[in-house]
């Protein structure tokens, strides 16, 4: 494919590229202005500038806890990727396994993970481990479902072509199933990483002595409302960066799926 390079077109502003920045800045400006005009007290909703000042003032705590949350999340996410891939392959392998495990997983997934944290604390004590496990538990499901879907939706005709050549189940998985499941797998990483943040922060707020969740809870009980919001922003930034990274990985790894209009 070639994009025509127009003859020295007048430099047009690329509004599509620019618009995320414009909208984000606009949000903060409106926020600042509205809070100031209405005179909302800072313990209800601080202005963005107040939040920024708090972030600078408590930079050390934010850095330390932000890193803690990031590490916890990534550890849980890594487990989810490995575990999800393994279970997804297992579930997608045969209809019988699928039928057996599916209701179990649905039931498991519908349990609110915050309700699991006390049990994890019981087993592992307060700290990083329950947070990692919560992040894992909440984020592995989409990986499993996506991988299993990729395997389960092999065109029956493709399967017939291979079977009539004497292909074994393993051949079909290696030649068709797994390559086919990869776009689904990489697509699920975006969802999984976002959920992993949810998981680790939930656990941190309930049972931890570090991490952004814990920091926000402490700040809240000290009425340091701007710091609470600063914590939110740290989470948002970490989330956006991680998401963008996963989107990039997805694009790099499964270029053919985008170009061929696969699975749309």
């Amino acid at each position, binding site marked *: 494919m070639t994009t025509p390079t127009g003859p020295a077109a007048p430099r047009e502003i690329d509004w599509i590229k620019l618009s995320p920045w414009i909208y984000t800045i606009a949000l903060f400006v409106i926020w600042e202005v509205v809070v100031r005009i209405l005179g909302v007290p800072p313990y209800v909703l601080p202005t963005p500038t107040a939040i920024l000042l708090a972030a600078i003032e408590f930079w050390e705590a934010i850095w330390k806890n932000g890193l803690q949350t990031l590490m916890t999340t990534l550890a849980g996410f890594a487990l989810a990727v490995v575990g999800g891939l393994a279970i997804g392959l297992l579930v997608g392998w045969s209809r019988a396994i699928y039928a057996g495990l599916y209701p179990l997983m649905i039931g498991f997934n519908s349990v609110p993970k915050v309700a699991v944290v006390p049990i994890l604390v019981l087993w592992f004590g307060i700290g990083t481990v329950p947070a990692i496990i919560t992040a894992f538990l909440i984020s592995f499901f989409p990986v499993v479902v996506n991988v299993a879907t990729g395997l389960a939706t092999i065109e029956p005709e493709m399967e017939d072509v291979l079977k*009539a050549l004497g292909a074994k189940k393993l051949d079909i998985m290696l030649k068709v199933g797994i*390559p086919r499941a990869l776009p689904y797998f990489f697509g699920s990483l975006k969802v999984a990483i976002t959920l992993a943040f949810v998981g680790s922060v939930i656990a941190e707020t309930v049972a931890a002595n570090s991490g952004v969740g814990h920091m926000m809870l402490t700040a809240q009980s000290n009425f340091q409302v701007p710091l609470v919001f600063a914590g939110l922003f740290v989470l948002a930034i970490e989330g956006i960066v991680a998401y963008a990274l996963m989107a990039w990985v997805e694009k790099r790894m499964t270029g053919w799926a985008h170009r061929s209009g696969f699975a749309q």
Partner: protein
Amino acid sequence: MSVPVILDDVTHRYGGAGGTIALEGCSLSVRSGEFAAVVGPSGCGKSTLMKLATGLQFPFQGTVTVAGNRVTKPVTMAGMAFQNPTMLPWRTTLDNVMLPLEIAQPHRSRLRKHRAEYVEKAELLLETVGLKGFGSKFPWQLSGGMQQRASLCRALIHEPDLLMLDEPFGALDAFTREELWCVIRDLHAARGFTVILVTHDLREAVFLADRIFVMSARPGRILAERTVDFPRPRDLEINYTQAFQDVVHELRGHIREARAAA
């Protein structure tokens, strides 16, 4: 090499007791090296017949025999092509065409060592169907008709003894279709494999086949059998002869009856 295919009083039912009966008391026998065509109303069980003949499904009743052996597992040397080309989008066209070589023996064990030789063969085959130079393109960079031709190459690359074609030309324009008729005709003449072709196009059946089986509406069985003895090699021109038209006409009559009986 080629193989005979025999279905003896086959009944096939999908989905256990009370399920759909697709075929009932269906018998047909395709000789080694013969070009057989199967025509019949939609939903009468033609695709089912293909699946039974390749061991992808097993009959509820009756027996299927391929190459003298009763079929109890998928046959291992059949080439198949369907209406839908089902190319793998992450492989180039050449790699798609070569896929059977990675599965079927003896090629599977030879492929690594003799890769260059096989690539050459695949490229030659692509050239036969008018896809010279398209091997390095991805299937989604090809038109529907071109993908269909590539899928035909995939069905042939491992030199199968049995070629199963389930409406492979259905989605093509008239000219491409006639072009591919000739490709199949020539390959069949050169290699002498057994072919079973399912089609809705009666002219296609008459032009290509040695024998045409007409199926009844579901549950399908063989209503009529017509030997076509135009001398080979056949030229596209025979399409316009009176004798050809007469055979087509006769088949049309059978199909009409089959549909009316449904």
